[in-house]
């Protein structure tokens, strides 16, 4: 008996099925699309998130000003992506551990890292990564995706020590192309580790648009290969991001394992201060996405809920600018490190073999 070839012949048994859903509550217009989750609380409870996003934007603005005047190194603003950083960080518990990238200063800020620490790091001084709080968060990861295995390792330690803590690993859309990220997700799902992977899908990896990053219809489905749940959220909707991460954290804490959250947004600014995005994308494209940015929509909602007004806005803006200025002032007032300090913390104790070099450095002489 013969039949026509049938690659997807319906006569063959389905052994696995998967769905990816997209979550959204707050429309760009400020209107509500779906019943709000418990994590949203009452309208006024959203005000801290709003303040966090506005502060981040002010810090970013100040950082660029410092960079432009030669007082800071290359810096990456989170313009348009504030809801992801504040939404994710605000869902975390203090004793959870964050794995940030260079784009995620806002999440660190919410976690308690000071403005001057952030400027210090971007000013080219390791002391900026010696966070006063939170002591156990990882420093900013520059090699894209290479922190994902760290998050899995930390989550493994939590599980082994029976601590109900969770690791939160922030990634970009470009990072989802890295093999180490896949390896980490696969291991995390295998051991049902308490780790949440949050992808900031801002559509770009420097000049590379998402369509050149993967042929996958969504980034959330990258989770399927690892054997864990994945979902999309509107990354410009801080309520959605926070709810999604909060539920993922609760599940992870309860031993239900990891998940991947793809937060859809757009990088409204240049990749970093070293980049000029007009080289590779049109102003119209950017302008269009300004319509969807996360801060304005939440402001609209707060105003319609009459828990926010013009006066609140003005004092907030002033307050954020003041904080940015004061943070910058404290950063600029720091005493520079002495060169020989590059030998401190190289090892717990500097091996004798390197004492000569330290001396040479101090004396500016190889003799």
């Amino acid at each position: 008996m013969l039949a026509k070839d049938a690659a997807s012949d319906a006569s063959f048994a389905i052994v696995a099925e998967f769905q990816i859903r997209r979550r959204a509550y707050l429309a760009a217009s400020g209107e509500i699309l779906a019943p709000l989750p418990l994590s949203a609380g009452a309208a006024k409870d959203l005000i801290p998130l709003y303040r966090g996003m506005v502060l981040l934007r002010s810090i970013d603005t100040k950082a660029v000003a410092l960079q432009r005047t030669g007082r800071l190194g290359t810096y990456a603003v989170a313009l348009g992506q504030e809801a992801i950083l504040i939404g994710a960080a605000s869902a975390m518990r203090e004793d959870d551990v964050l794995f940030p990238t260079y784009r995620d200063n806002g999440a660190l800020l919410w976690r308690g890292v000071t403005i001057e620490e952030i400027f210090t790091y971007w000013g080219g001084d390791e002391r900026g990564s010696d966070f006063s709080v939170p002591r156990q968060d990882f420093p900013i990861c520059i090699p894209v995706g290479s922190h994902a295995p760290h998050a899995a390792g930390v989550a493994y330690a939590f599980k082994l020590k029976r601590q109900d803590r969770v690791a939160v690993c922030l990634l970009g859309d470009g990072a989802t192309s890295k093999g180490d990220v896949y390896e980490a997700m696969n291991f995390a799902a295998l051991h049902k580790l308490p780790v949440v992977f949050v992808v900031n899908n801002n559509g770009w990896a420097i000049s590379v648009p998402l369509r050149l990053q993967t042929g996958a219809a969504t980034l959330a489905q990258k989770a399927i290969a690892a054997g864990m749940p994945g979902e999309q959220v509107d990354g410009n909707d801080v309520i959605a991001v926070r709810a999604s991460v909060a539920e993922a954290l609760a599940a992870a804490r309860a031993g239900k394992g990891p998940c991947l959250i793809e937060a859809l947004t757009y990088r409204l600014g240049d990749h970093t201060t070293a980049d000029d995005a007009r080289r590779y994308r049109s102003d119209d494209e950017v302008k269009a996405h300004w319509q969807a940015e996360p801060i304005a929509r939440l402001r609209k909602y707060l105003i319609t809920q009459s828990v926010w007004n013009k006066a609140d806005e003005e004092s907030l803006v002033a307050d954020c600018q003041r904080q940015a200025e004061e943070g910058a002032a404290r950063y600029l007032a720091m005493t520079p490190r002495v060169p020989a300090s590059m030998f401190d913390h190289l090892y717990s104790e500097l091996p004798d073999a390197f004492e000569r070099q330290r001396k040479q450095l101090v004396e500016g002489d190889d003799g």
Partner: protein
Amino acid sequence: MAEITLVEAVNLALARALTDDASVVVLGEDVGIGGGVFRATAGLQKRFGPDRVIDTPLAETLISGLCVGMAAQGLRPVCEIQFMGFIYPCIDQLVNHASRLRTRTRGRLTCPMVLRSPTGAGIHAPEHHSESNEAMLAHIPGLRVVVPSSPARAYGLLLAAIRDPDPVVFLEPTRLYRAIKEDVIDDGEALALDTAFTLRDGTDVTLVSWGAMIRETLLAADRLTENNISAEVIDLATLKPYDEEALLASVKKTGRLVVVHEAARTGGFGAEIAASVAERGLMSLLAPVERVTGFDTVLPLPQLELAYMPSVERITKAALRACAYA
């Protein structure tokens, strides 16, 4: 003929190679639409199309591994790893495949690929953007490692690397990308690989370096002249295989050797240079070999990177010490 920078010379050589040889393809992160974060590939995708100038996903292992497959099929892939701090995932492909495909198959399959990457510190770049790990790569059998130190040498050596039938790692000193301009004739003339350049003849001491450090080394040579010391300056240019005969001939003449590199001291490529002389030029040595290098510390963030890098001062002092030795 025009005065151009080193990064423009790289761009010129790539354009020339893409024009002359249909089998040349360029790939990497941001090399296409963006033209490269240092503009090394600016305009190439427009001219040669997205099939030959390929914006890859963000995956360095992939990029280097793709090159092995492409090269085995007769293409001449030239990939860019955006910064040397991201080159490590490529080492697996370089050691286990690219450098030995010819050996493993007794010449049946070959790997004419070029892996380009910026190297070195001094531009106040973020963390992991200023590494110098040429010594790791120069230890790999079957590989070539080339480091240009001027626009003209970048142009000629990159063309040679692309035309070479074996894999070449081509490390471009970011600090020199725009620091110097030089007349470069786009005549498609390649320079010889495996050959050192004697940038300055001298009789009292041999200064050996490569890449960005050539600048400080030449400035140190100037200072030495003021002290009536005649320094010979050798740009190794190709580290693997390096021009041992040129090195030995110079040391035979001068009797003194100072090796300069930015990379950490222990196991840096300066060790190989010093070892070669200790083995084959020992009796011509009138003074201990001097290595002026980066320290065995993690490369500091920008605020201290200059303190980490060998200075004209340190190089000069080392040479004076060698010359004063008795």
